């Protein structure tokens, strides 16, 4: 396997070290910050994994934002009307799969420009979810599980093991995507069709089918990301993704198209959000919150611009496959 250049992992590690030191200094506050960071990192990580799966298969997905929104919308209203959160979550996933299917159809079959296709998803999702939005509804909450024993561990317990189930699912999914991508037949073929599709085609891999499958799978991950937003907000609001789908894109790039890299980047960005929220809450803020808000975006730009830091995107990302 190729070597890992784990900038985000290193940064996340340093942050973790800083967190431990802070914990020694003020345990309660640190717990609040890190716990919030883990929750904030969830949707970013899931969204980034969506982008990663799509691009690794050769399809650029900038419609993550819209997919998350559609999933949160469907999840909320289906849960609300059925009264069962699980049905709502299934509905949200189904919706995100449909959005994934749309992206696959436009970019793989119609060979439309993929960035325009993603933009269509974003514009449509914002319009659609606001248009059909009904005020004043509530939904049953997403179950929260404190894992016995583990949650009582000092320091890590409350930060890692007392969350909504979707936060755990993010942790599980990132490991699964990593293993699947690097250890399985599917992963090998996925990496191949994103780099050199005709090489895969000439050995009998069906590029079109696999791209469809992976883009829909990516849509599902963005769907989980959208549901994760619902878990935190416990209701749907217009435009509730508020750019998180685009930060997810930044997380993907910052993580160099690798699952664990994305995890490091997501935690880092989540931590920034956690610190900002805590400072604001404590009224101990000298720096305007807007400047905190800029950091993830500026970091991403710097990483893209700095020589040697930017990962090479999959060679075929953005190019429709025309046959061998």
């Amino acid at each position: 396997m190729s070597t890992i250049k784990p900038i985000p992992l290193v940064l996340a590690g340093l942050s973790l070290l800083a967190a431990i030191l802070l914990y020694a200094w003020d345990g309660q506050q640190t717990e609040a910050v890190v716990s919030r960071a883990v929750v904030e990192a969830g949707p970013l990580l899931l969204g980034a994994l969506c982008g990663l799966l799509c691009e690794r298969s050769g399809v650029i997905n900038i419609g993550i934002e819209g997919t998350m929104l559609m999933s949160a919308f469907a999840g909320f209203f289906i849960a609300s009307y059925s009264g069962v959160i699980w049905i709502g979550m299934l509905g949200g996933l189904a919706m995100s799969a449909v959005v994934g299917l749309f992206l696959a159809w436009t970019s793989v079959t119609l060979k439309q420009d993929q960035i325009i296709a993603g933009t269509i998803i974003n514009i449509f999702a914002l319009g659609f979810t606001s248009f059909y939005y009904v005020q004043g509804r509530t939904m049953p909450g997403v179950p929260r599980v404190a894992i016995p024993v583990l949650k009582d561990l000092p320091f890590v317990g409350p930060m890692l093991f007392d969350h909504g189930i979707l936060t755990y699912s993010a942790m599980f999914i990132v490991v699964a995507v990593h293993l699947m991508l690097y250890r399985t037949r599917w992963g090998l073929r996925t990496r191949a069709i994103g780099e050199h599709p005709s090489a895969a085609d000439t050995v009998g891999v069906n590029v079109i089918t696999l791209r469809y499958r992976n883009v829909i799978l990516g849509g599902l991950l963005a769907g989980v990301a959208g549901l994760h937003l619902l878990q935190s907000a416990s209701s749907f609001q217009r435009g509730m993704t508020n750019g998180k789908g685009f930060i997810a894109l930044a997380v993907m790039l910052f993580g160099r198209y690798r699952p664990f890299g994305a995890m490091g980047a997501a935690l880092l960005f989540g931590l920034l959000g956690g610190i900002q929220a805590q400072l604001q809450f404590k009224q101990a803020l000298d720096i305007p919150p807007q400047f905190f808000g800029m950091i993830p975006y500026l970091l991403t730009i710097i990483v893209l611009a700095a020589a040697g830091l930017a990962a090479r995107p999959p060679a075929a990302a953005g190019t429709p496959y025309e046959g061998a």
Partner: protein
Amino acid sequence: MTDTALADPEVGGEDNDSAESSALAAGLRGLRLPTVAVGLAAVAGGILLIVSGENPLSVYWSILDESFLSGSGIGRTLEKATPMVMGGLAVAFAFKAGLFNIGGQGQLLLGAAFAAWVGYNFDLPLVVHLPLAMVVGGLVAALLGAIVGALKAYRGAHEVITTIMFNFVAGNLTDYLVSRDGPWNDPDGGAIARTPRIRDSAIIPTYGDIPIGFFIACGFAFLIWWLLNKTTFGFEIVTTGANKHAARYAGIGVNRIIILTMAISAFLAGIGGAIQSQGLFGRFEASNNAGLGFDGITIALLARTNPIAVIPAAILIGGLNASTTRLQQDFRIEPEVVSILQALILFFVAAPSVVRWLVRWKAIGDEEAIQLTGGWGA
């Protein structure tokens, strides 16, 4: 090479004798796809309206009546269309060099905020103040565009990503500038984050119902058309967009073109923001300009990146937006129905093969498909 489809192959190419008629014919041919796309979007949107229990015909009639059939309606439409012309021009112009400026939103915000600042902060005679405020707004945006261009040219950072990121940076920055702790906050605004009112000497007036800013925007459209089609600089831009390698071999400074094109594109969006502040709102208010940057993409593609065609495309989308209040009153329809229609228009205009299949019209060719990016490396 599919990514050259937007380049204008006919620059200086037509035969002398038939130039007039063939240009007209080409213009009419160019109308085909956008017209059908808008029609199909109306049908698809109609289905969505029926689903939510409305009669699409009466909704569409209301839009027409509200936005296009009265003097004040036309005024409102043109007001909405003005920043859209500029945003559409920004996207279309960048497309010509093979660049996708998705950052119209951030550039527009910068233009709007800085124009407002010049507008309220300085006391100058109108002939200086009004254009100065616009130009400052445009230039600040252009600076951002130049940074994006330089990152692309020298560091290979893809402009789609950097412009998306800069949208948020610019959004946060302008938010801060006018927030309660910010330096440009209006002390009389209470909780509202906004600048003080722009002085009259920097306000772009209206003529009756008609906003003068709209004509300024149209002037820019013609200027950009002229620049692209008649000048050697325009030739360099279009050549770079059509074939970067050949442009380089032909001695064109491709990096310079990329930076300048992004700067000019952002300048146009910035002017759009300036006109918003100086013409429509009389100040910069953080929440006033949401979503305008993305309208530019729809408009540019609907206009098939032709700068002149951006004007009617913007009027169409502007008209849709101008009717939202009436739709809410008459039908209790949320204003976002317009976004749905826009997304549908964008889809159909970007997918000629679907249009051809739906309307069985062979004359709509695949070469009308818009393919630009072709991957991050491009």
